[in-house]
């Protein structure tokens, strides 16, 4: 037994060798078994679509694969004006949003550290993150409406401007005949008047509900020697009537300020029309005059800014988007701030640094890694931006507000149905995101 035991000594050494092969294989198999579901998912949902999209981008518009077109789709991408607008807009987004979001987040984070109720404040700023971007888009679209009775932002503008420049009594009116000419926001009667003359000031386009209260049938006063008389009236009756003639059924416009100006443009007399629209400049000296209605009568009410119009649509989108993401940035930076060693700040203050210097020379450099995380995340988010533009911009402004992801969606899946160019846009977007992703991954590695 003992001998056997001795002679049997080598096998225990050799034994692992033969069993090592199946063991390693087994371990690979087990590994593969556990990896398989993930690999399968990755293959089906990531690798295959990605490869297919890249291949698809070299083929024609329709069908599963279409015909070979080489790099035509990429040429289209850079030569079609609405796609170029999309690329240009994305560049604006990348230039503005990450910097703005990081800066605003930093300011909020630093300030909320010092206030009471900071949790309440942080919650308020963070809340937009809890709303879907689509809902945000719809909400902001309503707030941006141009009509001040619909859009909150322009309603605010109307309240403010109503104090400084109130709307006139007849803001919608326009002259009924060419004898009344616009002048400096008001209207002036072209024909010159002498004492004893009559001035007929006919206005139209006045909605029935804007006719001043107490208006009665318009009357042309009889001419008086030495006076200049006239009437201001709503020169309209159903069917139109005869322009420039006071007819039955046409109302006078009371309360309108009429001025009599000398040939030199000086105001000689000023009067207000009566319920039947008539007015009378008494005892006018010989000479020739003009009658006019001042600009304040026609002052338009504040019509609102076109936030959703072609000129402001991109800034409007940026504001809404920054509003969403400022909260995210603030929370991440605040977390970084709370884990920052306080003694360094204390030391800096003890050494006599002012608050601005502490912020600028100590806080910001120490926060740099966190800031760069926020910044890079925002670049990726912004490159892929889609939902807010889709929900917020009116359809007539898509051409102006276009971004790459939106252009991809519309080219491939809506209307045009051009899968070739759509794929090319997607690949282009992918190429833009890669360097940023690489940067992010390198940093992950360094952190580990």
């Amino acid at each position, binding site marked *: 037994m003992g001998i056997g035991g001795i002679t049997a000594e080598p096998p225990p050494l050799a034994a692992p060798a033969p069993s090592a092969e199946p063991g390693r294989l087994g371990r690979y198999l087990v590994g593969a078994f556990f990896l398989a579901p993930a690999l399968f998912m990755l293959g089906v949902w990531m690798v295959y679509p990605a490869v297919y999209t890249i291949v698809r981008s070299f083929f*024609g*518009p*329709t*069908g*599963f694969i279409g015909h070979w077109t080489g790099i035509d789709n990429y040429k289209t991408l850079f030569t079609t004006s*609405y796609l170029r607008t999309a690329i240009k807009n994305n560049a604006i987004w990348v230039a503005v949003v990450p910097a703005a979001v990081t800066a605003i987040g930093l300011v909020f984070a630093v300030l909320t550290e010092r206030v009471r109720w900071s949790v309440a404040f942080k919650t308020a700023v963070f809340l937009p993150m809890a709303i879907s971007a689509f809902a945000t888009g719809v909400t902001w679209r309503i707030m941006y*409406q*141009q*009509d001040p009775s619909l859009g909150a932002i322009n309603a605010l503008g109307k309240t403010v401007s109503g104090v400084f420049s109130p709307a006139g009594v007849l803001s*919608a009116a*326009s002259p*009924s005949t060419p004898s009344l000419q616009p002048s400096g926001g008001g209207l002036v009667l072209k024909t010159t008047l002498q004492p004893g003359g009559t001035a007929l000031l006919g206005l*139209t*386009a*006045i*909605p*029935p*509900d*804007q006719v001043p209260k107490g208006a009665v049938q318009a009357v042309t006063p009889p001419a008086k020697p030495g006076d200049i008389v006239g009437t201001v009236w709503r*020169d*309209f*009756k*159903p*069917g*139109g009537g005869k322009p420039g003639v006071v007819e039955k059924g046409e109302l006078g416009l009371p309360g309108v300020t009429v001025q009599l100006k000398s040939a030199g443009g000086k105001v000689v007399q000023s009067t207000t029309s009566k319920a039947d629209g008539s007015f009378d400049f008494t005892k006018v000296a010989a000479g020739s005059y003009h009658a006019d209605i001042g600009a304040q009568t026609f002052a338009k009410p504040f019509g609102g800014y*076109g936030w*959703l*119009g*072609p000129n402001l649509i991109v800034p409007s989108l940026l504001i809404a988007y920054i509003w969403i993401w400022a909260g995210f940035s603030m929370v991440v930076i605040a977390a970084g701030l709370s884990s920052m060693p306080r003694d360094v700040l204390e030391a800096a203050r003890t050494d006599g640094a002012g608050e601005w210097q502490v912020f600028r020379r100590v806080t910001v450099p120490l926060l740099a890694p966190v800031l760069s995380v926020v910044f890079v995340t925002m670049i990726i988010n912004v490159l892929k931006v889609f939902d807010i533009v889709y929900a917020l911009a*009116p*359809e*007539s*402004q*898509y*051409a102006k507000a*276009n971004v790459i992801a939106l252009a991809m969606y*519309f*080219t491939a*899946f*809506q*209307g*045009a*149905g*051009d*899968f070739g160019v759509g794929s090319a846009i997607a690949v282009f977007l992918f190429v833009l995101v890669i360097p940023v992703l690489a940067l992010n991954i390198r940093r992950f590695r360094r952190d580990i």
Partner: protein
Amino acid sequence: MTRTRIVLGLALVTAMLVAGLADAGTSSHAKAGVNTAVSGSISFDGIWTSSSGQPQFEDVIKAFNKVYPNVHVNYKPVGNNLPTVLATAVAGGHPPDMADIAQPGTIAQFVAQGKLKPITYATSTMASNFAPAWLKLGTFGGKLYALPFKAANKSLVWYSVPTFKNAGVTPPTTFSQLLNDAKTIHASGTPAYSIGGSDGWTLTDLFENIYLRTFGAAKYDQLAAHQIKWTDPSVTTALTSMAKIIGDTSNIYGGTSGALQYGFNDSVTNAFASPPKAAMVFEADFVAGVITSSTKAKPGTDFNTFTWPSITPGPDASAVEIAGDLLVTFRDNPAIEAFVKFLATAPAAEAWAKQGGFGTGNKNVPASIYPDPITRLSEAPITTAKQVVFDMSDEQPPAFGATTGQGEWGLFQQFLKNPSNISGIQKQLESAAAAAYKKK
């Protein structure tokens, strides 16, 4: 597999026999119309959802099942994403048996790819129910592929009755009367036009009606097929007429910037608000649905409709532009054939028409089937029109005619912004059209 084939074969033979019998004795025995031999199930992808036509279409299916109790139609409400869903399903090789498509341009693409089955078996049924113009709408490359089942009259103008009354005008019958009325309405203190330019298609519809009324159906079809260039003098004339409306900016509710911001729905609710903010909306019969669902306006007393005024007198003056649902088939079997043929007959159309929101070119459907006077007013012209044309922007390649913010829709929005730049917009339209037709 073989068993199914045998069953199908048998079914086919029986179907033919029964169809022959039915043809022989339709008038005498209503019960003899019941066909139990044809069986199977049909998958149907449609745009109509539970709130927009699905229940009505299911009533049509019920009417069909009275005749063919053994055919089961599986209706799937896809909604507005239908073109996308279909394109993807076709690309993936698994289209439904049938679908409704609102864009002849898309059908032409599918036909060119050989994805659709012709429905020539229904030619005689259709010919006895529809005027030749309607068969032409379903014909692609010389063969009948589609059945124009549901049609919307797009040659309509909707107006606010109190605003017309205040201004003392009556619905115009000619274009110059329309412009005169608009002037009078403006003087009365209400803008004449409410334009939903945020939706590009409202603008192309306006242009198409003007073009159709000025140059007639034949020339309209040529422009739709890009046989006439967009730089053609006829387009200049039509755009000049259109500029008389959209260039009259003080007569548009909200002016140019308002017109660009309001969508179709806004343009309707603005015009039929209380008090009305504008007098007229140029759009199709479906305006009535928006008015009744989102305003308090009452038919007849608050809103009404008139046919697009004529521009050039002559036979084309009554031509009607329609939009609608063309039914197509991706497969072919007796069950599908039976369903398609049934859909071409009057009972199918009547099952939906009597509930409203439905127009048909079926000449055997009496106008009295429509539930109210306004629907009769808006749908009857479809059936009586000698000339019928399809919405032009739906006939063109979608990249040009039906993409938000791009092609025709985007360019007509630019035209709305600057109505004086007619030749510039024509050049841009032509280059966009040329690019889209080259790709097609």
